[in-house]
């Protein structure tokens, strides 16, 4: 969405350049509990996006004056590895990653039972190892699973995906090529069970009708992702159970 003219033809014979249909997600791969030091962790692949999320906590909140006497403070840090992007990304937070960290934290806040841990911190880290558009949605999906893996009490999982407009069509889950040459991009996060939207951003230009269509499309895909997240957690849980039994 760089305000560029769409010079590239992104849809050919009813298919997108990577062969997907309009309402088709990229391939998704979820591994739970991939890190040893973290209290919870998740590796999430969305097409060529590769992200690892880790959760630490609840633990003491520093600095003290930032504690909340009534509930845990959730910290979220979205970070791109220097080699994750086409041009090397300078290490450290930039304005984009600071905004994404805020949006991601607010996407997860509604499901975390923060009131259980007054004055504590729950820290969530999402490291982008490879990026191909949609990184913030991949990060939220990974973080949601990592929170569950860490045993943080949650009302439900959060699932996230973007929709966008390319060549005049509303399509699901833009890749980098589509994002760069498309007309609009709209990341959404949702609590699938209650259809509650917890993150919503829009960028580009859409009519009201396109927006509404896009939102429905995203919500449907969030349900798909939610099932994949649940399955991954159940597998992980049953593995640990089996391990225990073996012992």
């Amino acid at each position: 969405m760089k305000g560029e003219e769409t010079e590239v033809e992104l849809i050919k014979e009813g298919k997108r350049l990577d062969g997907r249909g309009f309402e088709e997600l990229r391939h998704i791969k979820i591994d739970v509990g991939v890190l040893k030091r973290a209290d919870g962790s998740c590796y999430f692949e969305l097409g060529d996006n590769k992200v690892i999320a880790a959760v630490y906590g609840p633990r003491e909140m520093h600095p003290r004056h930032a504690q909340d006497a009534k509930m845990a403070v959730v910290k979220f840090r979205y970070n791109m590895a220097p080699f994750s992007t086409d041009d090397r990304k300078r290490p450290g937070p930039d304005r984009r990653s600071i905004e994404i960290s805020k949006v991601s934290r607010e996407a997860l806040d509604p499901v975390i039972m923060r009131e259980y841990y007054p004055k504590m911190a729950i820290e969530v880290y999402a490291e982008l190892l490879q990026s191909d558009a949609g990184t913030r949605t991949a990060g939220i999906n990974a973080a949601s699973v990592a929170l569950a893996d860490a045993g943080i009490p949650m009302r439900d999982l959060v699932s996230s995906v973007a929709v966008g407009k390319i060549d005049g069509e509303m399509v699901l889950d833009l890749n980098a090529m589509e994002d760069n040459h498309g007309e609009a991009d709209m990341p959404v996060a949702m609590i699938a069970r209650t259809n509650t939207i917890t993150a919503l951003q829009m960028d580009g230009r859409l009519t009201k009708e396109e927006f509404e269509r896009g939102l429905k499309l995203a919500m449907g895909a969030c349900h798909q992702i939610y099932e994949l997240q649940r399955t991954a957690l159940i597998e992980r849980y049953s593995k640990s159970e089996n391990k225990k039994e073996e012992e």
Partner: protein
Amino acid sequence: MGLEIVDDIREDYVYDLVKSGKREDGRGFREYRQISVERDLIKRAEGSARVKVGDTDVLVGVKLELGEPFPDTPDKGVLITNAELVPLASPGFESGPPNENSIQLARVVDRGIRGSETTDLEKLCIEEGEKVWIVFIDIHILDDNGNLMDAAALGAIASLLNIRIPNEKYGVTGENTLPIRDTPVAVTMVKIEGNILVDPNFDEENAATSKLTVISNADGTLSGMQKSGSGGLKEEEIAEMVEIGIEKAGEIRESYL
């Protein structure tokens, strides 16, 4: 701790009012506070506007400087939007580098302008790949009494509408005004106790858990949206907010731009 209790009491007060259909300042749920836009206050800037929405007070200044284009858009000028929540404006703001709130403010205003393709960035190119105008939109918050977003976005577009390009100062030739193709207007709403309130004041903003900013253009299309806050929104609430956002933007555009 003392302060936290006061915050709780204020929140409860806002909730109780809203439940009985009222707001602190007597407005209706769909009603903006008094808006005023003063233009060209700052003669060192190429464009400026001071926007008040109730007691919220925002000064936007636009400066143009010559610089190099980005390598991937060699024929376009560069737009840089920056917001400073200076500690003068609120007891909660601190000195230091921009925090997540000021960054979000700047980036949402920026995306609203880009999304609507307000400024024709190609008109800001002087020599392809070498020399273009860098347009700095600086949002300076003076008094934060809630809903900085709408005031800042309005200040930005009002400033852009009549900038004078400083060709002479920089010894270049070209047109002196910048054609503005659209006028994106931001409308922010919060959800409190199931009700949608436009233009939240400071207490309402604090009390609400969900906030949505809807940026729309003269033709009713959307050019930006941002949900914030630690709560959720339902599909039908969002639809209603979009509806209201477009309508209110039209009213503001007509009166102040």
